[in-house]
């Protein structure tokens, strides 16, 4: 069972703002989904190798050669708040 406090903790990790209503629904919905997922908890998989990827690949390398990229102005055209050739963001520290 997922409690309200856990929802808040996970939302903080995910940098996701949730309304009070969303927190309540989320607690119930996540609990329901995890109850189903918990069916695999009881399987004896001791010693089974985990699969993170199905294609067997090792060290795909390429020469490290400089190549032209997009002009800075082009990339900044998509930015919500470009400024002086950079991405401007609010201060990391809340103002007192």
């Amino acid at each position: 069972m997922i409690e309200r406090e856990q929802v808040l903790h996970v939302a903080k990790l995910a940098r996701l703002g949730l309304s009070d209503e969303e927190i309540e629904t989320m607690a119930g919905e996540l609990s329901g989904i995890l109850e189903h997922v918990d069916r695999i908890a009881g399987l004896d998989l001791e010693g089974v190798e985990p699969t993170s990827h199905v294609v067997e690949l090792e060290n795909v390398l390429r020469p490290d050669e400089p190549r032209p990229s997009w002009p800075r102005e082009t990339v900044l055209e998509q930015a919500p708040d470009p400024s002086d050739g950079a991405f401007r963001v609010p201060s990391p520290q809340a103002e007192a």
Partner: protein
Amino acid sequence: MSELRRLTVTEAAARIAAGDVSPDEYFAAWRDAAAGDDLNAYLWRAEDTQGGAEGPLGGIPVAIKDLFCTEGVETTAGSRILEGHRPLYTAHAVWRLVAAGAEILGKTNMDEFAMGSSNENSAYGPVLNPWDHGRVPGGSSGGSAAAVAGGLAPCAIGTDTGGSIRQPAALCGIVGLKPTYGAISRYGMIAFASSLDQCGPLTRDVTDAALLLAAMQGRDPCDSTSVGIEGGVRLPDREDLSGLRFAVPAELARDSIEPGVREVFEATLATIERLGGEITETALPHAEHGISAYYVIAPAEASSNLARYDGVRYGLRAETAGDLVEMYETTRAEGFGAEVKRRIMLGTYALSSGYYDAYYGQAQKVRTKIAADFSAAFAEFDFVVTPTSPSVAFGLGEKTADPLAMYLNDFFTVPMSLAGIPAISIPAGLAEPEGGGPRLPVGFQIAAPAFAEQKLLDASYALEQAIGFDARPEGVGG
């Protein structure tokens, strides 16, 4: 429906190449059809041709799921957070289609970030099923499937992470192919769950699916997991199924399937036998745990992939008076829909300290067992077959209140995604929905070993010819 729009893509390409049909006239016929979109299938439509290259797809318009980046053309992934976003580059798969002569017809609606099985999670409104506007087209490639089935596009591409090509193809009565993981480059495909995401075609028939796959598959240096299909892909031509062994997984077949879907499935098994194929029941003991493993692995990967939407470099930024963290939190709160938030939360939880081994670690081990089950089956059999979806298209709003019920739609498609193997859904017949009403399409799923696409397409073609499915939604000729 105009005579031109009755042609399959393979037929149209041949007539254009022979000079019997003008590519401009063909494009205009589809542009006009797409302009009459009454299904909310499109998010953007092209006014004119742009490609014009010669090749196997010369003059063929393709509807592109809005998950694929298209240079200068708005690409939203069905999300508010990417509203107005114009990518700087075009996805490799789309580029390959255009290089083969295809024209981009439009960008299709989808569940936000490909998370959903009904298209009700799009920030731009749900797509309607062309067979019954009160029902869902399936998801997440619902716009692509509805456009093809509804006569608004000759063919389309989509992406499949846990069934997102196959399930909407089944619910709309068309062909949908999820190739082997690694067959087609993921470069420029907006990431959902990177170890599962794969691009594929949604088409009127198996031959058209082969034609699009042939154009899109191949290695791409920009996606180091793309390896392509050795020997390429040719158009299918098999006429019987003699000597081929089809396995029906006992565990999957036992699960709750609508009576009408079961009837069509069993009739299709009989057709396979009539064509000389052999049907045997087999065991895939871990496949039933597919949903549990998938709904840990996919959200875990998504929670990481979607961390990039932070309101800094592109997309939405919420107006806040507070600090940087508040800007992140508010931007993501405003930009993401309910299902995306749910999956980010689920994935973050599964990866968080104290739960990682119990959830993510265990799910990855289940994934190993599911892949091993398929390997064991393919040592004895050529294909594994199941219904694509446990039900025909369900009603709009019917399952939105219960996320788990929605997830269980993917019961038959998720195991193949976890194993990375190719699987196709072909229309096998019509069935009455539970609770009554006009009959709706049923999909038949065939899965094959990794990179056995040619064999899969050949067998699917033989079966398709024998089934002879030619029903179309009312008002859509064919």
